[in-house]
Structure formats: C-alpha cells, structure tokens
C-alpha cells in the first residue's frame, strides 16, 4: 500500500513537470498579455508585475480587430453549417442504407483530403481572381467546407453507426420517410455526436492558415492573418501580440478540451477510437 502511494506521488511529479513544460508557452502568453509593453520585453523577464488590461483595451480599440474576429466567426460558422448540411444526409444514407459501393465511397472521400493545398494553389488563386472570390468570406467558406467535408462525413458516419438499427425499423413501420427519420430521430439521438463534429469543424476552420494567408487581405482576413501582421520587424509589441493571441486562442482551446475524446475519431478517420 505504501509502495503504491509513493509511486503515485512520483508519477504526479513527473506528469505535472511534463504537462507544465508543454503548456508553458501558452501560460507565458497569457501572462504577457497582462503586462505593460515595457514589462513584456524587460530583462530579466518579470514573473511578478502590476497587471494591466491596457493591451486588451488597445487591441479592442483598434476597430479592425473586431472585423477580423467577425470574419473568423462568420467563416467558421458558415463553413460548419454548410458542411453539416451536405454531410448529415450522406452519412445517414451510408450508415443506415449501405450499398456495396459505400466503403469505396468513404475511402474515396478520405483520399480527396490527401490533396496538398499547395498543389492546387495556382488554379484556386486564378479561379478565385476570375470569379471575384479573392478576399471574400464566401470564398474561404467554400474552400474550408470542401477541405473538411471528408472529415465531417467520416465522423458523423461513425456516430450514426452506433445508433441501434431497430429504432429506424420501428419508425419506418410507422410510416416515417427518410427525411422525417433524419430530422426527428437520427439528429436528436446523435445530437452529442453532431455537436462534437461541428466543434471539430469550427476548430479546423478557425486555425486554418494556408488559404486564409494566401487568399484574403483587408476585407475577409480572419484572425490567423491578423496575428500574422504582428510578424513585421518594426517595434516590439509583445504584450499586444499576446493579448490579441489570447483572445484568438482561448475560445477554441475550450472547444478542443470539451470534445477531445470525440475528436480522435474525426482526426483519425475512425482508425482509433
């Protein structure tokens, strides 16, 4: 019994050292966000200082911050809703009415995810330029929806597969058509699964930083691009960078924490449960 206690204590120390080290950059960012610009760059670095909210005030007073934040919200939500609208019927059909082609369809969808974005950068740029989609929210919504659709379908498919088939059978006896089954039965029953799928989609859209950096500028740029603008070498605005980063990261971090268990399915295409 004593031995077990000692082992548990040792494990606690070791695990917390690792967890602390991995989390440290985020902790340091959170801390720096409450420093004045002078404290933020001071040598030696200050662990104790007079905390200030001036960075948050400064960041929020730059009216364009809210424009970038709104772009992030609108693009993530827009793409997630569009993705669910496309994916729910497909996942429903494939999990409840599988045909001999279903497996091939699923694998083919997965294979479209393998196309490296940079491989099609040129055509997408030219298509966007010619159709006026450059630097628009709709353009990014379309791209994000397409690139996340395979993950969304797979994740929903794995949740729908878990519902007992008999329920559907009973509903069909009562004369419910496919859309009634989907709306009144499947969606309420797998609401937690749909919610985690939506959260994963939001996380992926929010953090996407290839298309947003290349295809958006002043008008439609989301927070990823706004943060990138802090990379200019003139002046050290570390406290403001940290405050802006904190605002951009914290909501998504919470989403990630809430759904970590279910995310594994989506991120590994059901290969790890």
């Amino acid at each position, binding site marked *: 019994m004593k031995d077990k206690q000692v082992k548990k204590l040792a*494990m606690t120390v070791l695990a917390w050292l690792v967890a602390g080290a991995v989390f440290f950059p985020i902790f340091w960012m959170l801390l720096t966000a409450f420093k004045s610009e002078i404290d933020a760059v001071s040598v030696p670095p200050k662990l104790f200082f007079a905390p200030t909210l001036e960075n948050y005030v400064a960041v929020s007073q730059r009216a364009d911050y809210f424009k970038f934040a709104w772009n992030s919200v609108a693009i993530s939500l827009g793409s997630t809703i569009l993705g669910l609208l496309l994916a729910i019927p497909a996942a429903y059909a494939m999990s409840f009415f599988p045909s001999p082609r279903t497996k091939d369809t699923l694998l083919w969808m997965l294979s479209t995810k393998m196309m490296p974005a940079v491989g099609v950068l040129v055509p997408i740029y030219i*298509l966007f330029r010619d159709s006026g989609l450059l630097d628009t929210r709709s353009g990014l919504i379309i791209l994000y929806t397409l690139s996340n659709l395979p993950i969304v379908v797979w994740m929903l498919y794995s949740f729908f597969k878990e519902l007992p088939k008999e329920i559907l059978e009973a509903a069909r006896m009562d004369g419910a058509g496919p859309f009634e089954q989907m709306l009144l039965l499947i969606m309420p029953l797998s609401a937690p699964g749909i919610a985690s799928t939506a959260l994963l989609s939001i996380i992926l859209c929010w953090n996407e930083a290839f298309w947003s950096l290349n295809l958006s500028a002043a008008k439609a740029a989301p*927070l990823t691009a706004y943060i990138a603008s802090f990379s200019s070498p003139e002046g050290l605005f570390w406290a403001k960078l940290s405050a802006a980063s904190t605002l*951009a990261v914290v909501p998504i971090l919470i989403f990630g924490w809430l759904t970590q268990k279910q995310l594994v399915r989506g991120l590994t295409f059901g290969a790890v449960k």
Partner: protein
Amino acid sequence: MASQAVTPPLAGGGRAVRTLPLVGPSVGVLLVWMIVPLAMTLWFSLQRYNLLSPAEKVFSGLENYKFLLTDPSLFTAMGHTLQLVGAVLVLSVVLGTLFAILFDQDFYGQGVARLFVIAPFFVMPTVSALIWKNLLMHPENGLFAFITSSLGLGVIDWFTNYPLTAIIIVVAWQWVPFATLILLTAIQSLSGEQVEAARMDGAKPLSMFWFIILPHLLRPITVVVMIETIFLLTVFAEILVTTSGGPGDATTTLTYLIYLRALVEWDVGGASAGGVIAIVLANIVAFFLVRTVARNLDT
C-alpha cells in the same frame, strides 16, 4: 482501392430508400473539388505562363519540369521538407508514446494535466510561431536567452543560426500533443484483463512495454505518422511569419518554394509543376494511409 477487387457489402442491406439524393451532393462537390483544380494544375504546368506578362502564354511541354528538376533549389527545398517532416515525426512518435504511457498512469490531477498537454494542438499556427519566435526564442528579450545566459551558457539566436531547428521545435510543439491525444486514447482501449494477466505472470514494466503496449500501439502509431505526414508536408504559416523561408533559403520547404514561385514571382507554369510534384509525393503517403484505414473498416 483498386487493390480490393471484391468489396463485401456492409451489414444491413439497403432497400426501399433512394440514397443517391442524400449522398449525391457531397460526392458531387468533392468530385469537382478533386478534378477541376488538379486538371488545371496539370494544364498550367505545361505552359509558359507568368501573371506579370499574361499575354505571353504559350504551350511549352515539359519545359517547366525540366527547369525545375535541374534547379538545385528544388532539391534543397525537398531536403528541408524531409528534415522537417522526419524530425517532427520522430519527436511525435517517441514523445507521443512516452507521454501517452505517462498520462495513462494513476496520478493526482490527471484530468487537468491531460488538458494541459494536448492544449498546443488547438493553438493557431500563426500564434504559436510568433509566441515562440518572440516571447521565448528572441535573442535579446526572450525567456530562453535569459535562462541560458544566466546559466552562463551564452545566448542562442535560434531563428538566425538554427532556423530550421527552430521551426522544427515550433511545429513539433504543435504536433506532439496530437500524437499524445491519439495514442492516449488508443492505450485506454487496451484491455485491463490482458495487462493484469501479464502482471500476474510477473512481467516487468519494460517487457510489458515491449510485448503488450507497443504491439497494441503499432497501428495507432502508423495512423499518427501518416496523418501528420499529410499535414506536415504543407506546413506554411509557421515559416511565413518567422523566417519567410530564410535566411537565404535555409527554411524554404517544397510548400514554401511553390508559394514563392506562385504568389511572389507569379510564375504560374513553374509553380504548377512544383504543385504536381507535391501532389505526387502526398499521394504516395495517402496510398498507404487509405489502405490502413480500409483494413480497419473491415474489422
């Protein structure tokens, strides 16, 4: 997929419901998404076409490929890509496995510690790159410089002297937590009975690791390697906001090289030829990933 000539039908059996209108929209948009840009990339890669002088667009056959494949910068960039992907994969697998085992142990505050260790995966790439570059790795005001110099070790100017290593550290910081999350989930599915039985038989922790845990993790590790490869091949933001591919071309990867050709030099033909090479590379990995997932779908 061609490797499986006969696909056994999944259980259930479809009847009485027309599934085409349900599956059709998703398949349709993905089909367009796959074919149109790919065909355009292939077509552009055969043209001499620069957006700065679009009037001079002519068909040039394989000239872009010839130029690219005789250009040493392509191979330098592919070398950097290989180092970046390779190093991050090794770190992910080794640390991911160790962390997964560690965080599977019984200890105080397990739940919260797990949240801490997976957190970096949810931080957007531009934020992690700039936090590391400035707050931590800055040669004058950064925290690391303070720590190393107060230990009398001098100061390392990471992004100037070891730029690729610095980027590897930043990218690994984002992806080791991903590996940890996946492998931790996988370890938890290891049956308690099997572990208990091995312990009863007097298995030492090390042989437990080699003969029980590692074999169980083999497939999840393969999945982690393949998925990370797909994402790591296109690492972009971390390079753009820290080194912009420099100093010189020290951190120019294949993805960054294509970006430079496309949106800095506006060389549509050259960038497309590079894009085709990237697609071929990614598809080699993808082939194996799809096969692993397919095997999993059967069981």
